[in-house]
């Protein structure tokens, strides 16, 4: 009987597994590319898709991570994009990444249109997500949160077809570091974790030896295959971008997966429908063992066919004379000017294409930098003033919301365009300063949004739009003296007391005539004290004189 029951369970289990597998699909891949002979760029991509009937409200989870799915349900999220990045992607030298991300943490969420209180959901979600990823995302408060008008459109399909950006929330934390403690929960969301497939290469201690490391998590609704969007599925994309500098790792002529990650690649995750390792090397270098399959310039290793842990080596890299790979798209470099309280913010945007490119420029300036939009200037290097095709500026509010600037600019062909505005530094109370206040504050990176068609590039994730992030700029704000709140309180209150006392005196008292002989009681006491002191001193002197006189006699 018991055996029969067990058999039944096994049967049910397999039946469920099959149905689930029919709805769910998991793919994993690692793309290794050489930016130049010294830089290896690795892009891990883990995609889970899940067909659903009406509404994404699952009760049983199989491949899709439950911890995330529950948050998505609870906070009514339609689309979620979360990245954490250490380092800066150098667009000019490295080209465009498959998934671009700004330094620090970035989170943007589209809520479903039936959400009642978007702000409440947003606060709840950022707090929950900070718990999930052990990151300080709860610092994305209302002073950081913005609603971009056109820069961040939904990537997937939108219910009802029309977007309403009141359901969008966007926040960045440029000071947030990407640590192992963020990486571990991120890896736990993978169906096979770091046990199999490309995921096995994710060795936190080695990942942090990179020049650039970014983890990302994207959740969106997408159309299933086949023209009309009748059937939809949800898609969870997790990716890691990592750039290694071979020279600093001392791996120059030859490197391997083992030397980069200190791990061997394992056979595919059995739950995955596709698991590949793609390698592309620069001319002159060879891959060993030689990979026979080739797709779009990449040598492909199907990890499903792999029987045991193995290593892939790249040999014969030549030290380059000059780095030649230059971006042929759009790059952006921002910096600060000005001294004292007056500051200026300048972004020099370069268009390397020989045709005009429209871009959306998006900049969030924290509230403590009082932006002066009347000083906004867009000038091309040839000193032609470019008038933006569209401007949206939302002034910030002290402690409540940042200044938001969003504009559409048409970059002339082969040009350098300087976008600049002035700001005045504001002041914060002593408790609003973070620890190590003299470190300064980060202005979150400027975001340039372009169409990938305009740039003639292709990317693996969210192919139609390319975000180009600039540096997170460090700005110093005058700090108060943190050591003396008590002194300040005492001193100011003393001055107020002096003013209050004097006016109170004058308002309540009258002039009276006094006889000059009549002295005030305080003065009388003081005088009598002096008298007593004098007489005692005199007495002492007299006594000593008397004693000396006695002695001498």
């Amino acid at each position, binding site marked *: 009987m018991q055996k029969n029951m067990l058999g039944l369970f096994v049967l049910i289990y397999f039946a469920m597994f099959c149905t689930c597998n029919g709805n769910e699909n998991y793919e994993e891949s690692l793309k290794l590319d050489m930016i130049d002979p010294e830089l290896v760029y690795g892009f891990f991509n883990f995609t889970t898709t899940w067909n659903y009937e009406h509404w994404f409200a699952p009760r049983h989870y199989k491949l899709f991570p439950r911890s995330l799915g529950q948050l998505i349900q609870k906070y009514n999220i339609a689309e979620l994009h979360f990245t954490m990045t250490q380092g800066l992607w150098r667009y000019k030298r490295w080209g465009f990444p498959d998934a671009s991300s700004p330094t620090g943490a970035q989170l943007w969420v589209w809520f479903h249109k039936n959400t009642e209180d978007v702000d409440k959901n947003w606060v709840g979600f950022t707090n929950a997500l900070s718990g999930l990823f052990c990151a300080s995302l709860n610092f994305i408060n209302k002073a950081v949160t913005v609603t971009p008008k056109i820069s961040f459109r939904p990537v997937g399909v939108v219910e009802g077809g029309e977007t309403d950006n009141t359901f969008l929330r966007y926040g960045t934390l440029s000071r947030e570091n990407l640590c192992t403690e963020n990486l571990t929960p991120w890896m736990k969301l993978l169906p096979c974790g770091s046990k199999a497939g490309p995921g096995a290469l994710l060795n936190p201690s080695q990942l942090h030896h990179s020049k650039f490391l970014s983890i990302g998590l994207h959740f969106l609704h997408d159309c299933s295959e086949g023209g009309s969007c009748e059937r939809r599925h949800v898609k969870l994309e997790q990716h890691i971008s990592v750039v290694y500098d071979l020279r600093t790792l001392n791996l120059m002529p030859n490197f391997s997966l083992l030397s980069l990650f200190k791990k061997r690649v394992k056979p595919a995750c059995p739950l995955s429908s596709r698991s590949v390792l793609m390698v592309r090397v620069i001319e002159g270098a060879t891959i060993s063992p030689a990979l026979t399959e080739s797709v779009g310039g990449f040598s492909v290793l199907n990890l499903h066919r792999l029987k045991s842990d193995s290593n892939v080596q790249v040999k014969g890299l030549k030290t380059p004379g000059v780095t030649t790979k230059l971006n042929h798209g759009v790059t952006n470099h921002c910096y600060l000017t000005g*001294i*004292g*309280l*007056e500051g200026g913010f300048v972004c020099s945007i370069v268009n390397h294409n020989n045709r005009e490119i429209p871009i959306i420029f998006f900049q969030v300036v924290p*509230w403590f930098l*009082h932006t*002066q*939009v*009347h000083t906004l200037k867009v000038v091309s290097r040839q000193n032609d003033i470019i008038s933006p095709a569209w*401007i949206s*500026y*939302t*002034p*910030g*509010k*002290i*402690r409540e*919301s940042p*200044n938001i600037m969003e504009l559409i600019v048409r970059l002339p062909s082969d040009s350098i365009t300087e976008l600049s505005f002035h700001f*005045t530094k*504001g*002041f*914060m*109370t*002593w*408790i609003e300063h973070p620890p190590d206040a003299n470190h300064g504050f980060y202005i979150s990176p400027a975001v340039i949004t372009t169409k990938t068609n305009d740039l003639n590039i292709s990317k693996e994730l969210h192919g139609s739009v390319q975000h180009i992030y600039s540096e997170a700029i460090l700005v110093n704000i*005058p*700090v*108060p*003296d943190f050591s*003396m*709140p008590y002194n*300040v*309180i005492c*001193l*100011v209150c003393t*001055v*107020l007391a*002096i*003013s*209050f006392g*004097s*006016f*109170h*005196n*004058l*308002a*309540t*008292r*009258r*002039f*009276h*005539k*006094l*006889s*000059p002989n*009549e002295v*005030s009681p305080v003065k009388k006491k003081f005088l009598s004290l002096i008298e007593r002191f004098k007489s005692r001193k005199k007495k002492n002197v007299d006594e000593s004189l008397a004693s000396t006189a006695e002695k001498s006699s």
Partner: protein
Amino acid sequence: MGKQRIKNYVNASLSDVIPIFNCDYARADNDKVSLYKDQESLSDPPSGLNFISNPAGFDSNNSKFKLEISPLTLFEKSLKDVCQTTNTISDEFTEAEQVQCRDVYTLPSTSYVEPDILYLLISVQNKHSAVEMLLYISLAVLLRAWLFAAPEFVSWLSSLPEVSTPLSSWHRVVEGISVLKQGGSIHEGDSYHGSTLLLIFMSRLQEYSPLLLYLMFATCDIVTSLALLRFAEKFIRNELIDIYKPDNDISSQSKSIKLNESGMKDIPLLISLLYLFNPFTIATCVSKCTLIFSNMFLALFLNASLSGSVFSTTLFLALATYESLYPIVLLFAAALCYYKYQKTSWTIYTCMLLTTLCFLMWLSLLFVIAYLHDESPESIVSHYSFILRVPDQTPNVGVFWYFFTEVFDHFQSFFLCVFQLNVIVFSIPMSIKLRSHPVCLSFILIGIVAALKSYPSLGDAGLWLSILPLWSHTFKYLRMAIVTSIMLITTAIVCPVMWNLWIGARSANANFFFASSLAYTTAQVLILTDVLLAYLKWHYHLREGVCPKLETSNEKAMIRLLN
């Protein structure tokens, strides 16, 4: 001013003078007239004759001389007498003088004199011609134009926290205009914190011509200085009337500290020049701080409050209140002024009610206009909430910024209430104490607000410091004039230095600037209390005599401020 420039010399013979001043005979010397009674030379000639000195017009042959009619004469003698006298001898008068004399003559023959007629007579003695004033004004305008033409200096000046505050800085106005142009709302964000109407006015003006803006700011200063000039003239006249009224309670022993016309005649001009050439005012004007408008409305309020017109007084008070909220503490002072200088004879309660109602009417009218321009309730309250909640801790010369930077979070709202109350609470006890001196009350309250308000700047102090000479007759009772004035000047100089050390050179920290701004506030408070004490003491001595004696013995008494 043309009317006031009529010469007030009338020809009179010695025989005309004798009945006026009730003396036995009069003798004309070369440059003065001596009056004699009972063969004795009068030790003090009647005050009206103090000014007789006109050797050029003196003609001893036909025993006629020019008699200067001083208003004080009118109190010493019955008005009727004077007019009759002058009328009998008015054959040779010019037409204007005749008009003047007829005006005087038509008065009822009581000893009460209409202030306006008196004013005509008093201001005659103001020797400063319109040409002179015009010269000063054009000098002031030229100075401002010269400074406006140095943009680097202007931008340095406007970057100083003592000069422009978040509430009044010109940058914010420009920013507000550009936000308005983009169709945004100025109340949602942090771009502009002043009043809605001012911004709309400025944006219209800028559309019309940017040059007009510079002219506007210079004109505001000139209007303010002229208003102060008129205010001081009227006030001194009124004080003189009060003091020389026959039925007042002034001691006969206090002649030496009484106001006299010759001593006070330069004060109005001094006040107006002090305002025009005050570095504090110039800095405010040149950096185009919108504070200049509040100052102008306050000066116009002071001027109107002495005219006894409740409508104009409350209009300017409402404008000032609309601009910067704190002038609301002057409401009592306005009512008391109206009571004191009214032409009708309302009781004090009626005056208060009337003033309050008028004030509320004007203020609500301003609110309605603001609301019509920008249909949101924020257009009315947004700048008040900025003034009251003090969210911006940008340094200035006040007490708020560093305190609220450093104070512990959970005491924030408590201290906010305490600090704001501290600014306005003095209006009630001071109004009771100084109920018969409403102008002094206005002055003290303007000073307190300037020192203790949430976003003060040098321009605030500039206004009340310019009016300071109005109390020059009480300055002999100041206790620490040297200390406080040096303190004020030193801190005003040290503040920008400390600021530059902290923000520019980064070799000092916030405490340096804080200390100097705190000392600056202290100096202001000390000067104000000292002036008030001196004024009260002067008044006491006026009533009790210069050297008051004890009632019991004939000993010289000490004067102490006691409960």
